[in-house]
């Protein structure tokens, strides 16, 4: 820790003691605590580092005048100090511990009612509960009582923290008693008497907790509901965290209450109750007696008379990956039941045990609440598909059929009716929530085996949705995603008939002209994804592109996307640019000849870069060139690309949007990598004669020279030099890294001879200014610096044109390493340092203590 902080801290403590509650910015306390935590975590003793803290803590504890935020802070700080056994001892010796963690002390002071203080108490307590000393203290002071009271505190934050602390207490009991059993021979031998005492403590605590849980897991009247929910959450957490002997004890303690609670069939308790039952069930030994009782409980939950509860319970079973296949199979049946009833597709065979549930669910489906029930059913289909096929009630293909039927029923324009529940149709028709859930399910189902038979149906339904005037944009987006997903699993697309294709093309064409930009955007994105989708093989072993099959290929897609480049909505423009890149990538990879259309696109993209008012479109435009450059098999032979790169670089690096600049630098990086590919690692034992070595160097020099000249000509170097002085840190950082890379490649090889000098034109004067500034800072700097010689100086000064610089010279002159180290630090590293925090507290306190200053004004300033 830095000495300045050490010297400032006592003063800060003094200020905190004095200021009471009038600290203007209470986040500073949080920051202070964070800082102390980091100190403690590094292994250093907090008390050694900051000896003044104990004094501070004891003063606050005896002085009630402090505000609740300071008190809360102090409680947490006490906990932090007590985390280490040494710190704990010190606190105990100066009798702070007893006072601070005594709830009566705070109750008498009338401060316990403040949740802020209670949470400080709990968190402080949780922090010290790391060692046996603390647990003994906890037991001796009988802190279990107040902690249990806080489990159902009116403040949710307090209750939740109390839950976690209780879990911590039990875990500590568990670990210490196991240590006590195993290691009593060596370490705890001398503390034998203590050990017995502690063991008694533990069992006392555990008994107390068990009693408490048993008493609290009840629901006699509705006012107990929130408390009951909280206790069930606690119980589920405990059952997940604690290990066997303790777990069994807890389970046995609450078993009766749980059985009683299940019979209340209160729907609000279903989820927490299932969490408890499933947590109790997982990893339970078969010989454990209550296992049968737990299994029975699970069956009771899954056979309730309330369909909503049964569905929730079944969903919980599926999500928990319950090991017993009978349960998951039953749950899957329950969850598929609504789909079966609504669509009339018989997913489930006749099963008399479900007859009653079927009647109940059918009744429920005639009400408006059917929407949520169907959605629960659909959203669990992913879990169902994960099940082994022999546990599934029906082949997955049938589920696909049912989902398709449901989608048809939901579509406003289709007139199909089902053999299923007729009453439900009025609620689900045109309901976009059900539509989205069903499409989501369809997405997942694309991986099902044997779906080839329904392929045509899937595309028909999706086309229907894309065509329907009443489809919500989000539904359209999901439909497009489903098309892409199903195209991906198609073994071949020969099943796509002309009629289907015609309908599909019409729909896409129409959506590209939709009045809602979201719909246009999804359409354009879809075209891109389809263009980028992997090709499939047909029976004739001919490769077919999905976009060719569906839309007739680029001749359809590209004009549509070109049109979208003019869209008034910037998101759509951006998406269309990315989609064009995706669509054209295959032709770039093949090195196909350029078309007039592509030339038009490039012209348009340059317009976008120069004129578009929105960043999204400009970012996409730069990325288009990145995609092109990386896909192009031989970039240098593509004249259009090479011609446009300098423009993109010079425009992009001067953009107002930092992301555009960053992407531009990525483009520059690509060019850099292509110019200087990673040298193949030279043979470690290769021997090279002196002459050969010299020749080699000379060859390298000329290669490098031409590459560097190329880079300069394309504007890469000037873009980097422009970027390195950019005010946006990520941009400057990236440019700096790239320049360092360039320096690493170029400078060691290139000599200083005049014939190897490469000059670079700089449009912006900024980097020039900086270079000149370095020069002006005194010749000593670079005379001392071995990296630059006299020739460099000439290189800069001798150039006739003041805007021209020598590349190598600049690279050596700019202190790139120093720049990099500055740039890698986060921009707020100064303002976030502990010292700055301490000083802030002092200044704020000083300012507020000055008479006549308006505190509120200060606060307002702080907010901004």
């Amino acid at each position: 820790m830095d000495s300045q902080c050490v010297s400032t801290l006592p003063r800060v403590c003094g200020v905190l003691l004095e200021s009471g509650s009038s600290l203007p910015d209470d986040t500073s306390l949080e920051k202070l605590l964070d800082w102390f935590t980091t100190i403690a975590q590094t292994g250093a003793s907090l008390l050694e580092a900051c000896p003044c803290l104990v004094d501070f803590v004891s003063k606050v504890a005896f002085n009630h005048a402090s505000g609740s935020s300071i008190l809360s802070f102090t409680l947490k700080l006490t906990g932090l100090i007590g985390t280490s056994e040494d710190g704990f001892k010190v606190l105990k010796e100066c009798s702070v511990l007893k006072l601070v963690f005594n709830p009566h002390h705070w109750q008498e002071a009338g401060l316990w009612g403040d949740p802020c203080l209670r949470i400080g108490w709990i968190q402080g307590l949780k922090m010290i509960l790391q060692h046996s000393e603390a647990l003994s203290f906890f037991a001796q002071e009988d802190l279990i009582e107040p902690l249990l009271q806080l489990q159902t505190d009116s403040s949710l934050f307090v209750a939740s923290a109390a839950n976690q602390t209780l879990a911590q207490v039990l875990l500590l009991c568990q670990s210490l008693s196991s240590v006590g059993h195993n290691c009593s021979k060596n370490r705890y031998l001398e503390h034998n008497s203590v050990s017995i005492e502690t063991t008694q403590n533990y069992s006392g605590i555990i008994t107390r907790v068990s009693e408490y849980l048993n008493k609290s897991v009840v629901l006699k009247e509705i006012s107990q509901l929130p408390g009951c929910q909280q206790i069930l959450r606690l119980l589920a957490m405990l059952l997940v965290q604690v290990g066997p002997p303790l777990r069994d004890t807890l389970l046995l303690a609450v078993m009766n209450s749980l059985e009683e609670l299940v019979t209340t069939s209160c729907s609000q308790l279903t989820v927490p109750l299932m969490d408890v039952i499933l947590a109790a069930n997982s990893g339970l030994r078969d010989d454990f007696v209550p296992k049968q009782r737990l299994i029975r409980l699970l069956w009771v939950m899954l056979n309730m008379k309330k369909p909503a509860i049964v569905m929730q319970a079944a969903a919980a079973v599926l999500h928990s990956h319950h090991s017993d296949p009978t349960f998951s199979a039953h749950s899957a049946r329950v969850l598929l039941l609504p789909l079966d009833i609504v669509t009339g597709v018989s997913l489930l065979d006749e099963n008399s045990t479900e007859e009653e549930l079927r009647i109940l669910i059918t009744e429920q489906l005639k009400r408006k609440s059917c929407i949520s029930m169907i959605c629960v059913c659909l959203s669990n289909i992913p879990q169902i598909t994960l099940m082994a096929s022999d546990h599934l009630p029906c082949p997955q293909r049938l589920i696909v059929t049912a989902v398709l039927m449901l989608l048809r029923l939901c579509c406003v324009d289709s007139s199909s009716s089902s053999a299923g529940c007729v009453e439900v149709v009025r609620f689900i028709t045109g309901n976009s929530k059900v539509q989205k859930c069903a499409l989501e399910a369809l997405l997942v189902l694309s991986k099902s085996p044997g779906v080839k038979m329904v392929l045509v149906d899937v595309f028909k339904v999706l086309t229907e949705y894309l065509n329907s005037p009443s489809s919500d944009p989000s539904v359209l987006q999901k439909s497009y995603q489903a098309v892409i997903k199903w195209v991906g699993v198609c073994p071949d697309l020969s099943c796509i008939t002309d009629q289907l294709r015609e309908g599909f093309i019409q729909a896409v064409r129409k959506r590209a002209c939709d009045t809602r930009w979201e719909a246009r955007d999804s359409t354009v994105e879809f075209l891109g994804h389809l263009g980028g989708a992997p090709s499939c093989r047909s029976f004739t072993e001919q490769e077919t592109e999905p976009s060719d099959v569906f839309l007739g290929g680029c001749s359809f897609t590209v004009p549509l996307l070109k049109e979208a480049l003019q869209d008034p909505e910037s998101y759509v423009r951006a998406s269309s640019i990315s989609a064009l890149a995706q669509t054209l990538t295959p032709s770039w990879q093949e090195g196909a000849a350029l078309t007039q259309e592509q030339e038009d696109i490039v012209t348009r993209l340059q317009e976008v870069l120069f004129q578009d008012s929105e960043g999204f479109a400009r970012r996409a435009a730069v990325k288009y060139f990145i995609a092109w450059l990386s896909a192009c098999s031989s970039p240098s032979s593509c004249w259009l690309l090479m011609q446009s790169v300098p423009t993109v670089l010079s425009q992009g690096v001067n953009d107002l949007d930092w992301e555009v600049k960053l992407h531009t630098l990525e483009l520059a990086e690509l060019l850099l990598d292509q110019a200087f590919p990673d040298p193949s690692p030279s043979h470690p034992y290769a021997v090279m004669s002196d002459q050969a070595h010299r020749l080699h160097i000379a060859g390298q020099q000329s290669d490098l020279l031409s590459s560097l000249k190329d880079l300069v000509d394309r504007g890469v170097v000037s873009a980097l030099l422009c970027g390195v002085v950019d005010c946006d840190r990520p941009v400057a950082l990236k440019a700096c890294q790239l320049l360092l890379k360039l320096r690493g490649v170029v400078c060691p090889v290139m000599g200083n001879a005049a014939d190897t000098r490469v000059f670079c034109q700089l449009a912006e004067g900024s980097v020039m200014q900086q270079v000149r500034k370095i020069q002006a800072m005194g010749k000593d700097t670079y005379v001392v610096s071995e990296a630059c010689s006299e020739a460099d100086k000439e290189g800069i000064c001798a150039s006739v044109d003041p805007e021209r610089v020598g590349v190598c010279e600049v690279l050596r002159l700019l202190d790139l390493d120093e720049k990099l180290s500055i740039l890698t630090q986060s921009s707020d590293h100064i303002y976030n340092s502990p010292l700055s925090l301490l000083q802030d507290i002092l200044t704020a306190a000083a300012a507020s203590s000055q008479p006549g200053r308006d505190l509120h004004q200060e606060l307002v300033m702080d907010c901004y």
Partner: protein
Amino acid sequence: MKLYCLSGHPTLPCNVLKFKSTTIMLDCGLDTTSVLNFLPLPLVHSPRLSKLPGWISKDGSINLEKRELLDLSTIDVILISNYHCMMALPYITEHTGFTGTVYATEPTLQIGRLLMEELVNFMERVPKAQSATCWKNKEIQRMLPGPLKDAVDVWTWKRCYSMQEVNSALSKVQLVGYSQKVELFGAVQVSPLSSGYSLGSSNWIIQSHHEKVSYVSGSSLLTTHPQPMDQSSLKNSDVLILTGLTQMPTANPDGMLGEFCSNLAMTIRAGGNVLVPCYSSGVIYDLLECLYQFIESANLGTTPFYFISPVANSSLEFSQIFAEWLCHNKQTKVYLPEPPFPHAELIQTNKLKHYPSIHGDFSSEFRQPCVVFTGHPSLRFGDVVHFMELWGKSSLNTVIFTEPDFSYLDALAPYQPLAMKCVYCPIDTRLNFHQVSKLLKEVQPLHVVCPEQYTQPPLTQSHRSDLMLELQPPPMPYRRCSVLNLPFRRRYERVYILPELANSLVPSEVKPGVSVATVSAVLQSKDNKHTLQSVPKAPPVAPSKKRKRVMEEPPVTMAPKPLLSGAVPLEAFLATLQKHGITEVKVEETADGHILHLQAEDTLIQLEEDGTHIVCDNNEPLRATLRDLVLRFLQKL
């Protein structure tokens, strides 16, 4: 109260309500779907149409769906709810002996006039030398092809009216404003309410002092150009007559508008033309407004839009001047001042041009690709016929149907085979079933009367039980030619009492807050108003020496007998009887009260809720005593 239903078309209603001695016709819509049986009337000679085998293009008449269910001359008033529902007006008011008044709002009258003018113009500018009627003979009709063979009542189909008849009919219209109360013969009061469907469209309240009938026709809850619907005034109706719901219950107008725009843009981008057959007022304003916003975003800035109709200019201009009938948003624009509809700007910037017909200026300025809005939506007459012939052969062009009144497949039949793309985007902003059930829940009428079509799901979507009215009690359905007895009886009539008569009353309180007085007066009924006047005092008898004649004697005005009220409490009465020496009383309980048998006197006293009888033979003193005892317990008025 009776309702005569003259039209079976739910959106073109024509009902007659007889209510308190008035005969009120509610709307007179004209169902023109029968024109679909005829060939289109081309503006220029069409070799294709004239060469169709077995078809001769020469007839063009209109079906008037009216049955002589009642004598039209007896109708006192006609209430018009919107301009689409008044197209049959000349058939009702002319040559029928009609002498009543027609009530409508100003925009309804003006735009209705435009639509009628347009119809007459469409018909008259392609005059026919002769009209065929022989085919209407049953024998011949039987042999005709297709739907014509099955058409019923072809003899009732009438020729289109003339401009002269239109003017005469419209001269009988009296203008009313929203919420204005119009009294009909003192018997009922009618007043129009904003219905939110079109400019000046209205629902009507027909009420007497104790009864209220609401007539809801063509209403909309969507925010389009007209003033929003007035729902609250419909509350507490005894009967609500519900007509004019949307014809497209499954098509959401917003979705359709979007569909319209995207199809339009798609066609124009591909270099094709778009034809929109539409009425010259109504939805077209919304279409133009929607396009105004869409043009820029779809890069359609240079595409010309043409609106061709004999009344195009008037329609566009009228819409701008009816500011008070517009929605709040548009009204506020007027104060800026700005034209309320953006089509003014489209016209100014030359993006929208309007012409009376394809002849003249239009032919010289016509530029393709373009968008043409023109009538008639049936595709049987009007300029649209020309464009169908012109553009039908190219698959680049699109015809977009937006009016829901005609089946687009039937409308297209005579133009087949057709290469042109057809898109059906029916835009009907009228109430859908969901909105109606909400509305009815809100206004809670006692009874609902509606066309029978609304009481079952549409034929094509029989599984959609949500596309029908489900009410408790169930609505009363009507069909063409039915006569409904509306299910409520008038029980009360308001009677006025003159001040001097009121002054002379002596009320006596029968229970707290309720006082009763007896009135003797003369009831005068005039103009369906009833007044109680004081009984004229007998003129002072002139001293006359003449011998009085019985005849001349003024009627002796005897003071009316006092009225009794109250009940005889049994216990107290028995006690009183006992006090008067009557002890042997046998009390028998009956359904209505008690029978007291005075055994010694052999007398019966029947105490009932609304009467007391004393039965004793020939013992007048006892009867009088008993009567007086009973009277002690009763109040006299």
